[in-house]
């Protein structure tokens, strides 16, 4: 059993498990942090961004004026932003049988894998994962296509040139694997390969293994996966949460008794408690609005935003923010808000019960009804005529490199009254803000990451007791900035097996057993003899028939009489009335009127003779 690790990002994993005769890809995360090296794509012409000086090396030998721009003391690539793809050289991706998706954030690289690699398998995901994943992909494609950039910068990727560039471009890794965003057509094609599954539904893969998704409590439809054969069990734990937010709670008990547990997707902010961050978010928001400023919240169009809106719904009155408009701007804003209301079976119990009442599960419906929350596909159109300040704007992309958020950064960045509140933990806020410096607006970093923290995961592992744990290497040591926090790492016995990008791990357990079925007729013919009380044995002579990884014992040749001759042996298959004469200088098979049997026997004998 082997694990191929194609991504180094612990929360955006992409691993391939070879188990029995199957090749299973576990998640398909796309590392988008690479976009931080690119210039923002403004929706409206920005004089500032369009007049940036090009980069020329100090000695003038390298001139990349067209590709690289100097902005706020840092060098950025001036082209359409590119993403860092999972490793594609480690193994032949066309051999992948299935891809299991655990949540909508972990499927963003799907089109890169399913298209143009010869992939012919199936992708398994839950319905909300597929639908919301589609929205997120659609949103990114839309953001990119709205601001087309003909130029594609490649010269800077040349190793010799990259070495000469200033940081952080100089330190960027695997830049040749970076790719531009896919098209909508590729998205549709990739998603057409998705087959929907429900929690605890068992899917047979070629009769060899069975896979089954379990609720992971992190987002709508998010799942962990159990991959098991008759005698082995592998658990794949991706983004999971034990907090009471909107999704169905995490199913922990089904993870028990695993031989191997692959652990990914722990919180990226182990020291930031989500509740505390939510409180920070609200108080900073209220503080800004009271002082007459605007609040910008760069966020994804699905996920934590539902909880943020729910929290604000309760907070608005107490903070006297009743008249402040809240805007949600995204090409998929409407679909996201509406989808969240219809996936009742995937919601937490509390919200599920609301389905039976005449009220929607999420209170953002009421905010929309009362006109407190308004959503628009983009800043163009209706929004521009209805826009009132001071206000709160939720919009993407959290990297601040593309999407409507770029416009608001340009618009509000110069006033110290305004505040930008980062809630998504995926990007370093300082890097995100780099091309906007100097910035007068206040910045508040309240990353809300509801995924398991180290304390919770230690407790979970104590309970489910896997034999071996495999995890990204980042989890096996304290964070670099807080080396004294030994509580922020996994301490297990035996120690977890760490992996990094491009690792190939031999998972430390051997398959010892295989289930074999006995046909009833054959079973009837067995004569067990008791060797000690309760234990009987019988010798079985039969033929193993294997098909679709299912093995069956059938009647074969049972009565064989061996006679010694001067030159060798004669095997007399009595029931078949056949003789096999084995002599030093020749072998004869005497079999009347049963040509297929004769051929089979001939082949068998030849194989054995070869071995001899």
């Amino acid at each position, binding site marked *: 059993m082997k694990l191929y690790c194609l991504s180094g990002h612990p929360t955006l994993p992409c691993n391939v498990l070879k188990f029995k005769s199957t090749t299973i890809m576990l998640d398909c995360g796309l590392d988008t942090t690479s976009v931080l090296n690119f210039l923002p794509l403004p929706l409206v012409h920005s004089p500032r961004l369009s007049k940036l000086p090009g980069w020329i090396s100090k000695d003038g030998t390298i001139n990349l004026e067209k590709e690289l721009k100097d902005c706020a003391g840092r060098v950025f690539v001036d082209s359409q932003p590119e993403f860092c793809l999972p490793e594609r050289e480690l193994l032949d991706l066309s051999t992948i049988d299935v891809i299991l998706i655990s949540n909508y954030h972990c499927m963003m690289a799907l089109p890169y894998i399913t298209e143009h690699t010869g992939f012919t398998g199936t992708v398994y995901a839950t319905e909300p994962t597929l639908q919301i994943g589609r929205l997120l992909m659609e949103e990114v494609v839309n953001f990119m296509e709205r601001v087309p950039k003909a130029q594609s910068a490649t010269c800077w990727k040349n190793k010799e040139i990259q070495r000469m560039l200033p940081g952080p471009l100089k330190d960027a890794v695997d830049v040749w694997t970076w790719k531009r965003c896919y098209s909508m057509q590729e998205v549709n094609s990739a998603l057409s390969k998705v087959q929907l599954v429900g929690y605890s539904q068992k899917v047979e893969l070629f009769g060899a293994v069975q896979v089954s998704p379990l609720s992971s409590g992190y987002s709508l439809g998010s799942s962990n996966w159990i991959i098991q054969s008759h005698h082995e069990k592998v658990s794949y734990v991706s983004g999971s949460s034990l907090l009471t937010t909107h999704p169905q709670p995490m199913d922990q008990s089904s993870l028990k008794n695993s031989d191997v547990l692959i652990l990914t997707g722990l919180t990226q902010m182990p020291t930031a408690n989500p509740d505390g*961050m939510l409180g920070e978010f609200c108080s900073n928001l209220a503080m800004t609005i009271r002082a007459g400023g605007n609040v910008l919240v760069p966020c994804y169009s699905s996920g934590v935003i539902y909880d943020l809106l729910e929290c604000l719904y309760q907070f608005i009155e*107490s903070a006297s923010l009743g008249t402040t408009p809240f805007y949600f701007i995204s090409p998929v804003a409407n679909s996201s808000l509406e989808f969240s209301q219809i996936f009742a079976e995937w919601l937490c119990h509390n919200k599920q019960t609301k389905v039976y009442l005449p009220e929607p599960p999420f209170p953002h419906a009421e905010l929309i009804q009362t006109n407190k929350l308004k959503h628009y596909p983009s800043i163009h159109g209706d929004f521009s005529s209805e826009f009132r300040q001071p206000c709160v704007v939720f919009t993407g992309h959290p990297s601040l490199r593309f999407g409507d958020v770029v416009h608001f950064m340009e618009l509000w960045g110069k006033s110290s009254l305004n505040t930008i509140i980062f809630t998504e933990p995926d990007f370093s806020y300082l890097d995100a803000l780099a091309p906007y410096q100097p910035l007068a607006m206040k910045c508040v970093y309240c990353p809300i990451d509801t995924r398991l923290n180290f304390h919770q995961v230690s407790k979970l592992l104590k309970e489910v007791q896997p034999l071996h744990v495999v995890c990204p290497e980042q989890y096996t040591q304290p964070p670099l900035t*807080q080396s004294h926090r030994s509580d922020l790492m996994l301490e297990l016995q035996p120690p977890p097996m760490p992996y990094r990008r491009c690792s190939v791990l031999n998972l430390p357990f051997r398959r010892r057993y295989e289930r074999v079925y006995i046909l009833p007729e054959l079973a009837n013919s067995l004569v067990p003899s008791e060797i000690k009380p309760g234990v009987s044995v019988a010798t079985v002579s039969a033929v193993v028939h294997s098909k679709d990884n299912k093995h069956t014992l059938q009647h074969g040749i049972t009565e064989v009489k061996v006679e010694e001759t001067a030159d060798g042996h004669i095997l007399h298959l009595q029931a078949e009335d056949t003789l096999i004469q084995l002599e030093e200088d020749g072998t004869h098979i005497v079999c009347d009127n049963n040509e297929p049997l004769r051929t089979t026997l001939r082949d068998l004998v030849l194989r054995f003779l070869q071995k001899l």
Partner: protein
Amino acid sequence: MDRECVSLLPRVCEVLAASGSSLPDDTSLEKLLDWFTGLTKAGTSLLESCPCLLEFISTVVHNTALDPSILSFTLRLTGFVAVTEVAFKVLQESSVLDLVFNLQHWQEAGLWEDPCIRIGWIQGLRTMMQHPKALSFFVQADFLQPLLQLQTDKSLFVASAANQMLAHVLLSCQSVSSVGSNDVDEEGEDVGRSGGSIADLEYSAVTVETNQDYAAVVTAISECLKKSLVPRENTQLHQSLQILKLLALLLAQTRPPLWEKLLQMVADSVDELLVAGYSQLILPLMDVILAAYSCDVNRRAPDQRVSRLLSFMLNIRKPADLIQAAAAFLRRGLHDLVHTAQSARVLLLPLDIITGLNLLTTTADEQRFLMMEQLKNKTSCISLICVCLTNTPQMTLMAADCLPCPPVLIVTAVLSLLKLCSGDSSSPSSSSSGCREVSRNVIGSSKVQKCALDALTALSGSPGVEVKLAEVFTLLVQCLDNPDSDPTVLQKSFQALVQWMSVCSDLSSITDQHRQDLLQVVRKRSCDIRWEVRDSTVEFLGRLAGVRVIQTTAEEASDASVAVLGGCCFTTPLLRAALQDTESYVRASAISALAQTLAASWQQGAALTQEQTEIVNQLLEVLSWDTEGFARRAVVRYFIAWLSSMSSHSCVQSPASSSLLMPSVRSVLSRGSADLDWEVKVHTLELAELLLDEAFSGQRGYTKGNPTQTHPYAVIPNTLHTRTHNEEDVVGVLNSLVQWGVVSALLSGLVDCDRPVALRACRLLITLREVVCPLSLGALDATAAMATVARVTCELPGCGWAREIRKMLVMKAKDANAEGGVSGGEVVNCDDCGEAGQEAASVGGQTPCVSVCEVLRSLDLDERLDVLTRSSDHVHNSPLSLLQDILTASSARSQPDTQQEVIADCY
């Protein structure tokens, strides 16, 4: 005793003796016993006053078929009856006593199994045993053994009562023996306190023979203590625990030679118990040792045995037990330098280990190792650290030579611990993996944070810690800024900050950066999502305004709010925003904080700002419209504070503020007295009282506060007579009181349905009456003497309270007319006080006016005060009512037909 009660009691006894199940409720018997207790304490002889009780007891005691609760009641009642020697004799002579307390009698009837019988038996004996005869009775009946058995009864109540009883017996024996042996009781008071009223009784009856009996009792009890102290197996721990409790009780109350005898008897067993090291018994054991030790220390030089035991306790190997023992010792506050220093070292050890600061110069390696091992366990680490922190402030108050390190170092350790809790820093000694393992146990523990903050607050008063102010300030601001701090932690951080600033009044070490950080964090917390946090923040702003500090040596003292937050320009807008909060507690706190913030400007008589005028308008709106009582109460208190500060500094009153204050006060009085919340009304009356104080201060006959509390023979200070009684003055003042609405507020309060409101109003009206038209003058004199004052009138509008007052006045007038009196006819100026007249008056646009003096004299205020002073349930709770209830319940039971419900057919 009430005659009516005496007459009812025989019937009640009959009812109880017949069947107890017809009681109105299960507390009736307890209430009856309470009544008897009261009577006994008042010195009433129950048997003399209620001879029926003897018959009741003898009837009941023979009827074992009765409800056990009645039997238990009878046992306890017998104790009360036999509390005097005379009654005891009567009971003994009639053989009732023997039967009542005869164990065999109850056992044969199968009733002894019922715990209520056992506890009745113990309590009856305990109550009775106030004189030597009862003690003799106890000894001769050989009740000691059963009592010792009951000490380990399965019912905790029984066991505890038996323990108390044993202590009582022993102490009684001690008193009687000492009297009998002519040992002068130099600590008679002690005995009276501890053992009951034995000292009052005559001891002449004590013979040498009984003395021997008592000695036998003492020996038997001591033997039992010795024997049962050490548990033979784990199941006997409960018994040991009981014995230890008893022993602690005895050692604290007995005197030599009994004290020595007891100690001698149990010393070995205590030793054995110490060595056995049962953790559950550590605290009770420490109680025993400390009881012996305190007694000893108070009397003379400590006994060697006790000192040794104490030293042993403070060197136990088990860290958790050791900490408990040290904390118990320190809490006693005994003057013992050696052991105090030892306890302090023990209690500082966990802090020393976890913070890596060298608080202790020397510690036994083994003790340190054991403690560290214990601290590696998260649960015990947190509990040990919390015990240490709880005792830290007390340690810093100890003599310097007892402390292993200066208080400043302890403050540093607490700060370091708080940093560990927030996960911000590693322990300085983190080089050792052991320390790292320990310190990570406290990361994120809000329990430790809370204890540490409490300790930090208390440590502010320790000598020499002022130098830490800046560091404390920084850390507390970090705590306040931390998104993960829970509301209690934030509240405690705010409290600590205020405390440190109030103690270290010199803020010169606080930099501008500190101030900026605090401003930022206060602004953020005032918008917090949790109302508790917003409330704490607002409270903090108010408290800070009350702290006087010096910023630099050159500057004058100012309040801390000005010094660190920039004063009103920062706080007032925040507080005004908090007035709009959805949570009423926050609104109320904001109003109080505003009062505290503005207090300084009121006191200085500063000119009123536009903002203050707006605040007043906002507050009056809150009083009128706020749906919650808290906020409205706070508004009235705001005006009370304002008015008080103006009154106390009347010399610097600014006319501008008066021009806003007095009309506002008038509005507050009228709105507050019409409020639905009784506390708002009481506060409104307080405001009215302030106005009365202000108006009549120095006026003859005016006493501040509660008139009924003044002693009739009290010497009236001369200052009260300084102002001459000038009728014109009084008229002027009374007129202003009427105009401000004080009189209306008082009158409306008088007829309020809430007793506290009516009571307060009544007292104030009496005070007012005594100043303007004292009753002592008599009607005719009054008319003549106060002809001018009587012309001061107030309006009685058509609303509820005024109608009530009018009715009362009319009634009074009718009564007076009927008696042929002269007063009262002219009380109400309108011709007809009936409904028609009122209507006519209101139709005509006139509001009827009445003379204030006449109203005050006609309202029978003294009678009203008398009624109001009694609690509202005084009728319901009287013994008479209880007896009547018992009789009624019994008759209802005997005539079940009358109780049948009306059954209606429903189709």
